[in-house]
């Protein structure tokens, strides 16, 4: 099963707490997950101050500054992993260095009942 592990932290303290991870440690962990064959993709995100929210209502698009909702913790990054079950996903998430100062929300990916086309097929069929 695929799980999206959303890493939430308070941006103001993410890098300044005694337990705060350094970038090298985060990178090293991502590489170890990659090496274990469980990784689909993982990224760290720019600060929430760079976020823009888009909505479409009645066909009209609106653009607003900032995230959808103001919260104490912000989305700082994510892992998309392939795990045997929730227990394995939780174990992997617990070792994400930022979990020491923030939290990780583990969400199973819902497989939509639509057959996905391989990427190269899509490209081939486009004009």
């Amino acid at each position, binding site marked *: *099963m695929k*799980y999206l592990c959303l890493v939430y932290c308070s941006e103001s303290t993410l890098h300044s707490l005694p337990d705060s991870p350094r970038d090298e440690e985060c990178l090293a962990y991502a590489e170890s997950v990659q090496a274990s064959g469980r990784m689909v993709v993982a990224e760290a995100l720019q600060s929430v101050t760079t976020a823009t929210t888009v909505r479409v209502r009645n066909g009209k698009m609106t653009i607003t500054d900032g995230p959808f909702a103001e919260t104490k913790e912000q989305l700082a990054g994510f892992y998309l992993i392939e795990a*045997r079950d*929730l227990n394995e996903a939780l*174990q992997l998430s617990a070792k994400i260095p930022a979990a020491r100062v923030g939290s990780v929300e583990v969400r*199973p990916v819902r497989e939509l009942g639509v057959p996905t086309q391989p990427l190269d097929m899509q490209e081939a069929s486009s004009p």
Partner: protein
Amino acid sequence: MAYGQVISAIYRHDSRRVLATLIRLLGDFDLAEEALHDAFTAAIVQWQRDGVPDNPRAWLVSAGRFKAIDNLRRRARFDASQAELARQIEVNAEDRLQDDSEALEDDRLRLIFTCCHPALPPPAQIALTLREICGLTTEEIAHAFLCTPTTVAQRIVRAKAKIRDAGIPYQVPSRDELPERMESVLRVIYLVFNEGYSASSGSALTRVDLSDEAIRIGRLLVGLLPEPEAVGLLALMLLHESRREARVSPTGELVRLSDQDRLHWCQEGIAEGGALVELALKSRRFGPYTLQAAIAAVHAEAASAAETDWLQIIGLYDVLLRIEPSPVAELNRAVAVAMYEGPEAGLALIDALLARGELQDYHLAYAAQADLYRQVGRMNEARAAYRQALAFCVQQPERQFLTRQLDSLG
């Protein structure tokens, strides 16, 4: 024994075991429950005709599996995916059925850890545990927790959906996962016990059934996985349970530990609980449940409140507070200090606790304070503290007790 009695004895003894194995074989709670029901229905007819088989449990597991495959095949007429599922179960079950009896016992442990998975909300863990492991009905669970059957049913349905959709596995956790997973299992068992022992509201001081169920799961867990804290929790429950009769008066009023008639304490429970405490302490890997059990054991050994080894109790609370700080444990320690050093020393500790802003809505903090004020003759303060206690107390027998204390001060 009449045939009906034989069947119900087998049902009582084996239905939860069979269910645990069917959940593993079929990979689905609802499918397994349906199969269990079908298997027993078939057994009632066939065993009357052919006699009860040597190994009824194996018969039921096998019959349940075939019934499940039949059910899926029937549904396959409307939903093609069910046929594939039936085929998978048929193939998988062949090798899984070869498992020895140890694997079947493991199924019960798997069921405990799955029902108490910390990824499920705590009320759902409790409902699922009572439903799947103890076999209580939705109505029984609702009655015990003073909520509607619809609420309980919803909790169970949502929990099963999360087990399925989030991929919560049906397995005993690995060594490195065990501590936090065990904690969650023990918490569920203790919550069930406490709900039975001191119902959080309403008129019945104890609900025997829930405490019995909790002790049953505790025994099952200790039998399958004798971790020190599991042993400690079982000891704690047995020691509390041993005082059940003495802690309520014939008129349904709460009787304090110091006033209880110790002849009514159940010696069998004390002996078993005490032996388990020693076993858990010897492991040197004990935790808060074992320490609380050890405190209960010291009380149980004393012939009266005055003859209690209060110094040992204070020492045990000190260790407990080091590994698991809690204001309620601090309050209990303060009461022990009052018994050992005198009421003034206890009052000072409780005042400090309340001044820290802890336990300000906890009725027992004011009740303890009131008792100590009374002992040192500060009657106005004692009255005020009993009134405070009453303001926060919702349980009827305890309210009765506090009211009587207040009235006795004039």
